[in-house]
């Protein structure tokens, strides 16, 4: 039995089922509200959900179960009296240290929790960069959406901000440096000074078995770093488009990555009306389409950056992704074949598998 948490424009859904068949919706929370992201911390077994009520603003809630009592987390706000307000929480990631969690959001902010998500504290050093420098938002806002922890090294983090690039810390967030060498923003004039380049990172993932390796889906470009995010090489050749949002990795294979190409920034749908995941097993030297079981005609879907999830590894790796049109697809064999898990959900914002 596999259980999923699916954040949508109209609430959080819990689904469960067996490979090869539609899943059953087993619970819904935050009915009517946008749920940007939800995940279960495998250590505490508690579920964390981020909501952005159009009325009441962004919040993080914590509960023992989806259909249960949700408690609002404390500290999820910017300093009072400033010129900015928190707009959205995009992602929550488990840290390497016990009980530690990280949350990223708009406007380019990182929060940390040391108590399993009950309370949060703004990472001030990164916020001070944000205040001192001119960070430009992407189309979805100025979002810190990717948090790549380093297995066994709780002090090391890489975060991705749209459109303020990659930021790296090796001291648990006490200090930060940029990690953007080699990234080419084709949407800017070549003469734009490096320090003025708005770098629209769409997603970052670390290869856990080789943690100095990271993969990135960029706003036009797929990249790989082999030096912990300091520099990047374009590996997008061979894809039908190097534009897209989410990216997945096989935890057992540091040469693996999965992307879901969309046509381009001006046409954010699956190319040629076909839904295909592209897989590399040679660190981006070549890409193979994986679409067996996915819609292959008249399908113009958009898959957002948090709407691609995985569990397991190797040949039996499970992959799940949802679309803004409400479909949810899955593979139980690392993308070789796919089936439809659900087809009439609200627009899907995030998908995560319960460990």
């Amino acid at each position: 039995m596999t259980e999923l948490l699916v954040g949508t424009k109209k609430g959080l859904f819990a689904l469960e089922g067996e490979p090869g068949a539609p899943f059953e919706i087993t619970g819904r929370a935050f009915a009517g509200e946008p749920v940007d992201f939800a995940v279960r911390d495998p250590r505490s077994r508690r579920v964390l959900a981020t909501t952005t009520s159009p009325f009441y603003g962004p919040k993080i809630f914590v509960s023992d179960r989806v259909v249960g009592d949700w408690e609002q987390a404390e500290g999820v706000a910017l300093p009072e009296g400033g010129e900015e307000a928190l707009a959205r929480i995009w992602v929550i990631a488990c840290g390497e240290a016990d009980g530690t969690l990280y949350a990223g959001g708009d406007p380019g902010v990182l929060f940390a929790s040391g108590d399993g998500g009950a309370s949060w504290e703004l990472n001030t050093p990164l916020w001070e960069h944000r205040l001192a420098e001119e960070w430009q938002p992407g189309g979805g806002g100025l979002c810190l959406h990717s948090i790549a922890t380093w297995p066994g090294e709780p002090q090391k983090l890489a975060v991705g901000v749209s459109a303020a690039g990659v930021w790296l810390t090796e001291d648990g967030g006490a200090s930060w440096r940029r990690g953007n060498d080699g990234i080419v923003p084709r949407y800017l004039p070549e003469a734009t000074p490096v320090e003025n380049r708005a770098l629209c990172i769409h997603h970052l993932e670390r290869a856990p078995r080789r943690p100095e390796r990271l993969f990135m889906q960029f706003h036009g470009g797929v990249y790989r770093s082999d030096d912990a995010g300091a520099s990047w090489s374009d590996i997008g050749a061979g894809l039908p488009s190097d534009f897209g949002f989410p990216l997945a990795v096989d935890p057992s294979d540091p040469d693996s990555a999965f992307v879901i190409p969309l046509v381009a920034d001006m046409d954010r749908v699956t190319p040629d009306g076909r839904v295909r995941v592209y897989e590399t097993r040679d660190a981006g030297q070549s890409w193979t389409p994986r679409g067996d079981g996915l819609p292959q005609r008249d399908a113009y879907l958009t898959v957002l950056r948090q709407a691609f999830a995985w569990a397991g590894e190797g040949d039996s790796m499970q992959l799940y992704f949802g679309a803004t049109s409400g479909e949810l697809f899955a593979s139980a064999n690392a993308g070789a074949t796919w089936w439809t898990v659900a087809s009439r959900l609200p627009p899907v914002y995030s998908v995560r598998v319960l460990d």
Partner: protein
Amino acid sequence: MRTMAVVCVHGPLRKLAGDRAEHRTEGATVEELLRALEREHPGLTGWILDERGLIRRHINVFVNGERGRERTAVEPGDRVEVLPAITGG
């Protein structure tokens, strides 16, 4: 001058405010009233006013039936309604 007005909250705000809709609260402006209400019911913090002290974009505040803003003056006995805007998608 400090004045006592009645602040009315609805929906999830009511639950956060001790499961009570009407609150006699002290303040000379809408913002002062709302801050006072937050102090009385800390769970409301961040739900009506954001970190900047601004009323959230899709919340409407009415003072005796007229649209009010953060600095709208409040007189003794005024009735301040806090309502979600007609918005959505």
